[in-house]
């Protein structure tokens, strides 16, 4: 499928029923993809089919439906493992990126982090890759250290080796949700590995937008959210390198994760099931597998190029509007653009854009410390996906000009 071909475009947008609607009297322009993506028909149908035909609990059932549900659930794990270049045993289903990071901070962190130990993060982390480590540091008496961010929104790596020195884990975002910065994840992992530091890559914004292969990245952990990559909400995954995952204590306790239970103690299943207590999000996992199928059929390298082209176009369109300041790197950004308008606060801009059917996001994007450092109380963000079009970006420019004229 050639993404520049008009008929192919129609076909792609036709896969997303939600895009065929008007909002406030205008055709919807959905530019809030970094918050959550829309879902293709194939994912929606997978959920429906599961509930209509196969719904049952997994693993313990001795009947036909349970066998089907178990097969589909474990099949989704295999699918996601293939999607990330991992093996089945290295994929733990979680509720999303946030739970995946909390799992590591608890199950790995409590075991490996002690008083005075250093946890290395960056200044551009989403709260989900900051707060779990703050909680761990508070529990264990550890210290947080941060790779600084330059004024143009890149990681300042000039002191990375010194920052890595003595650190136990380096957890960093692959693509910044508020700046669009693409961090050199493979290089960061390699340098951390040389320093003997465990790595976690927050792939929430990258897993659905570009090819992500855990062996090529060389990370120990990787966390992702299904709903940002065409999958359902309530499902995500943690990749953990086999050796490290197998050595970890459980996260939550309960059914499904045990081998045997006595009154005083229990034995646990091996990874990954050891980390999946209780009935899992079965339908959502299967839906996530369908999303992986959809994205691979589309081609993640082409998705990346398309998103990036829209971001380049958006930068050009925005630079043409008086009083607009664009945050983040000038070149080489992922498919999202954050900006502030001199004439109007982000919330005024976003509320007004909604009146034209344009869905943007305004606020701190769950990166309060980063925006504070950049001296911006709140920004507007347009984030793109493969079903967005150059015509929509043009239209955003027209709408923002009207908003500027209104408030200026």
């Amino acid at each position: 499928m050639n993404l520049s071909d008009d008929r192919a475009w129609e076909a792609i947008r036709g896969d997303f029923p939600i895009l065929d609607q008007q909002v406030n009297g205008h055709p919807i322009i959905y530019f809030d993809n970094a918050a959550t993506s829309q879902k293709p028909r194939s994912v929606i149908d997978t959920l429906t089919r599961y509930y209509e035909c196969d719904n049952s609990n997994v693993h313990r059932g001795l009947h036909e439906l349970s066998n089907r549900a178990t097969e589909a659930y474990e099949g989704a794990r295999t699918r996601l493992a293939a999607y990330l270049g991992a093996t089945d045993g290295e994929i733990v289903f979680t509720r999303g990126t946030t739970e995946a990071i909390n799992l590591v901070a608890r199950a790995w962190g409590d075991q490996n982090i002690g008083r005075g130990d250093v946890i290395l993060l960056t200044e551009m982390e989403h709260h989900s890759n900051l707060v779990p480590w703050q909680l761990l540091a508070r529990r264990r008496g550890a210290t947080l250290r941060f790779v600084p961010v330059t004024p143009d929104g890149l990681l300042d790596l000039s002191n990375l080796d010194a920052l890595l020195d003595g650190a136990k884990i380096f957890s960093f975002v692959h693509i910044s949700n508020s700046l669009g910065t693409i961090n050199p994840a493979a290089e960061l992992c390699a340098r951390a590995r040389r320093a003997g530091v465990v790595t976690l890559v927050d792939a929430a914004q990258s897993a659905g937008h570009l090819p992500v292969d855990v062996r090529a990245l060389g990370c120990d952990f990787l966390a992702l959210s299904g709903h940002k990559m065409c999958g359902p909400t309530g499902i995500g995954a943690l990749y953990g390198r086999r050796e490290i995952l197998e050595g970890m204590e459980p996260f939550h306790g309960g059914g499904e994760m045990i081998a045997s239970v006595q009154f005083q103690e229990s034995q646990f299943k091996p990874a990954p099931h050891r980390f999946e207590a209780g009935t899992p999000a079965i339908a959502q996992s299967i839906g996530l597998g369908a999303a992986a199928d959809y994205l691979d059929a589309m081609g993640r390298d082409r998705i990346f190029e398309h998103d990036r082209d829209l971001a380049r176009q958006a930068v050009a369109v925005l630079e043409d509007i008086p009083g607009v300041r664009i945050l983040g790197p000038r070149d080489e950004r992922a498919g999202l653009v954050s900006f502030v308008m001199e004439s109007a606060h982000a919330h005024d801009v976003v509320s007004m854009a909604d009146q034209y059917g344009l869905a943007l996001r305004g606020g701190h994007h769950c990166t309060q410390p980063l925006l504070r450092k950049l001296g911006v109380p709140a920004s507007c963000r347009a984030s793109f996906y493969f079903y967005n079009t150059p015509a929509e970006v043009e239209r955003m420019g027209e709408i923002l000009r009207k908003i500027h004229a209104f408030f200026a």
Partner: protein
Amino acid sequence: MNLEELYQEIILDHSKRPRNFGPLPDATVTVKGDNPSCGDEVELAVKLSPDRIEALKFTGQGCAICMASASLMTVKMKGRSRTEAADMAHAFREMLVAQEPPEPPANFGDLQVFSAVRRFPQRVKCATLAWRALEQALSAPEAGPVSTEESRD
């Protein structure tokens, strides 16, 4: 009503040229308010006598609705008795959040333009921030900052 109608003259005017904006050196009470979800910040300084608001000014930054609401509030509250001000602050919040809002008091005047904010639920916090700070200044100034998100350590 659409949003452009909400941002009518009075809101745009007060947000671009906020009245009573700046420090109040002889304030007896100051209360900080913030709306962490969008970064709005208002610091309200009030000079209270035993029974009335002698003067009030504010500083801070935020969206047009937040700034206009704070500005118009200072205009409307100056010189009011403490009970009257507390009643009006309560009525203002009721106007935006009550299931069935009562008729606004006769002394509301221009404040009534904010009644339309109830149709944009995400913006209610913006409109009420300064009023929460005022309520706190009147009732429990020693209680510290107010926030639209309750936070506990």
